[in-house]
């Protein structure tokens, strides 16, 4: 009877999503939704949309309550207290709106005008997969299709007059049995690998990590929506580099100096060891404050990138996060050396507001 409310509900959700879209820039820079991520959904806090009315401000109005206590006894701070007014007062609630990652990525793409990623070697790579699509009358018992079997048996019994509605017992015999059967399908395979590298030397503070975290969330969201499977690996470095899990990645702080080349070397090792370059679309993101230890190390980095790393990658992004110690030289060195190379992108991230722009720089190439 009530299809109406479902439509109202749909409409409401539409409006809410419109609101999220409107405020996407805010969400993108404030990192509010990072960490609110489920498997396929992100839950986004949205203020309940409210129709404005002429009404009294809440703060001034007292009210009447009941219970123990002397004058002066505190009733607590929260806005809950408004509920005591015996008249009609509606509390405001925040809505958690669930948005699928796919939708979020689409909003992101619209907002930043991102081109769709062209996967490397599309179509040329393929993988075989088994799909259970058919029914056969022979097969192994573990693939037996109970419903079909039952139906065959029922048909047979009705036709042969063995079926008694008063006593509906169905006994399948051998020729009633049906089995699932599979087909081999060729599927174009496009998998992506994201490698995050971060400088955790003493000069990278909490604020910088927060920026990296927010930025990587959106990078994940976007790349994930373009590929079927993605792998994510994390590398932290100061003067030496090591691979860590996600949690450690965002929460480690070391005090040592900075040798960026250590991270690039490890990154290269990791790719060579675990991934075939032909089959994977590989993205590497490196965040640092750009304060490399020495000019020689910087030279080493440039050589590594030029000769080994960049040719293996779809995209190499270097984000220079400004810290209170200022920011270093590294971004300039990279820009000088890779001016013409589309596969290497650099971006300066001065503060949270800059996340928006730098995402556009990183992802805007459609690689």
């Amino acid at each position, binding site marked *: 009877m009530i299809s109406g409310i479902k439509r109202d509900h749909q409409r409401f959700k539409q409006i809410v999503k419109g609101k999220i879209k409107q405020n996407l820039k805010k969400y993108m820079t404030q990192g509010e939704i990072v960490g609110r991520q489920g498997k396929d959904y992100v839950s986004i806090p949205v203020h309940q949309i409210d*129709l404005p009315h*002429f009404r009294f401000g809440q703060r001034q109005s007292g009210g009447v*309550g009941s219970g123990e206590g002397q004058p002066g006894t505190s*009733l607590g701070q929260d806005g809950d207290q408004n509920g005591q007014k015996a008249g009609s007062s509606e509390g405001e609630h925040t809505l958690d709106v669930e948005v699928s990652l796919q939708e979020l990525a689409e909003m992101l793409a619209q907002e930043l005008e991102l081109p769709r990623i062209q996967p490397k070697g599309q179509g040329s790579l393929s993988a075989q997969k088994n799909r259970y699509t058919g029914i056969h009358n022979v097969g192994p018992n573990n693939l037996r299709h109970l419903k079909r079997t039952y139906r065959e048996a029922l048909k047979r019994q009705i036709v042969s007059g063995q079926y008694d509605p008063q006593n509906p017992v169905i006994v399948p015999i051998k020729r009633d049995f049906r089995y699932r059967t599979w087909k081999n399908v060729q599927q174009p395979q496009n998998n992506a690998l994201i490698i995050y590298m971060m400088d955790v030397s003493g000069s990278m503070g909490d604020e910088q990590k927060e920026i990296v975290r927010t930025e990587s969330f959106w990078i994940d969201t976007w790349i994930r929506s373009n590929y079927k499977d993605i792998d994510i690996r994390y590398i932290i470095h100061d003067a030496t580099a090591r691979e860590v899990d996600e949690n450690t990645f965002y929460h480690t702080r070391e005090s040592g100096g900075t040798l960026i080349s250590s991270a690039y070397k490890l990154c290269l090792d990791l790719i060579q060891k675990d991934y075939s370059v032909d089959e994977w679309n590989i993205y590497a993101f490196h965040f640092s404050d750009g304060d490399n230890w020495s000019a020689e190390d910087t030279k080493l980095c440039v050589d590594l990138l030029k000769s080994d790393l960049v040719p293996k990658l779809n995209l190499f992004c270097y984000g220079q996060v400004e810290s209170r110690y200022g920011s270093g030289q590294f971004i300039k060195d990279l820009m000088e050396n890779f001016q013409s190379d589309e596969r290497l992108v650099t971006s300066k991230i001065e503060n949270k507001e800059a996340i928006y722009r730098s995402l556009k720089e990183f992802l805007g190439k459609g690689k």
Partner: protein
Amino acid sequence: MRHQLPPELHRAHQEIREIARGYGLNTFDIIFELVDYDEINEVAALGGFPNRYPHWRFGMEYDYLNKTYTYGLQKIYELVINNDPCYAYLQKGNAVVDQKLVMAHVYGHCDFFKNNMWFAHTNRKMLDEMANHATRIREFQDQLGVEVVEDFIDQCLSIDNLIDQYSVFQNAPAAKKSSLLVEDPESDAHRGLKKFQNKDYLENFVNPRSFIEEQEKRKREGQEKLRKFPARPERDVLAFLVNFAPLEGWQQEILSIVREEAYYFAPQAATKIMNEGWASYWHSTIMTKHVLKDSEVVDYADHHSGTVSSRPGQLNPYKLGIELFRDIEERWNKGKFGKEYDECEDSGIKERWDKQIGLGRQKIFEVRKMHNDVTFIDSFMNEEFCERQKLFTYGFNRRTGQYEIVDRDWRKVKSQLLFSLSNFGQPIILVEDGNYQNRGELLLVHQHEGLDLEYDKATETLKNIFAIWSRPVHLMTKHNSQGKLLSFDGKEVHEKDAA
């Protein structure tokens, strides 16, 4: 949605109906619908009506109900609509004892709807009327597009509290178009002047100058009054806009629909405490005296206490209402009223006062007929009651940033409660001038009674009124004891200090 009640509930319904009638409850026919939790959320989101016009706010309510249900925060126990026949909903899967409780409760509500005089002019075929509204608005949406219509509904709903809450009796008459007439003072400057017939040479004696002047003055004043528009400040802002805003036909109709529904729901807001109190009084009477089986007592007690419990520091309208009804019943049973009782000064005697006149039941039936929340509290809340119920007033302490108990003096409690109830807790806004500054602008006046308006919301609302009036709109109000004139001219909000 024609779910036949299962036999057990059907029997329970009949039993409760007979008991309720035996007590003198006089209701419309009540039809109980058995619905599952999802359906009940759907109906609840629509305010109890299965068919209403499409609007996202119902979807929002639904979303909220669904989530709170999922998280076990809220459970709707009763849902009943003021209609003839009266529809009420039972939730599938509730225990039988709960269903009985709800049924008994619903009989209380329905009796209240039918007999309380504030409901006398509500539309008892509202179920159909709402469906008609839905059809009309859907038609508009088909013709004009969903968003155009929805935006306009949003604007209307934004001011749906600007009705004359107390004109429910007059069935909300609208201002007449004729009051718009502005007479040209030139053309009829002398028309209507009363003069005595006479010869020319007697003119100065028969119609002395002072007499003529007085006549002219009276006439001018009359014209001033006529020119003022509306002649008297208009509380029914919606009616004023329906009549005089330059709306297209469909807009006028939608605004009327919103207004009609606002008037339909107004008495329910005006009698919340009484209505819930009355229904709770009857469910507890019917259940404990008749219907409960021994095995159900514990569950009943649990759920009953749930509905009338007050969290510390909070006021539960169910609780306040039922206690006040019981108090009235006891006082009129024992004769604790009238001159003799009021003048007795011995608290011991007063305490033991019992004349055994047994008028309690009769009295509460009378009360449920004549009162609304304001008069109910005003007439019957007394010192003993406030003390027994441990009532207090609270306020916001700016210094500590917390709400605190302010006072336990019963007079203050009562006046605070009455204040929060009067005009249903809504600010009073009047149309003062529909031709402000002789430029066709709209001037609204907020009758300030100690509480400021929420400022941001007020400006947002003003924008919505502008969209309807389509000329600049102004609101005269006060902010921190300073008179303010808020204006919106279609582009910017202006704020001026005013007297």
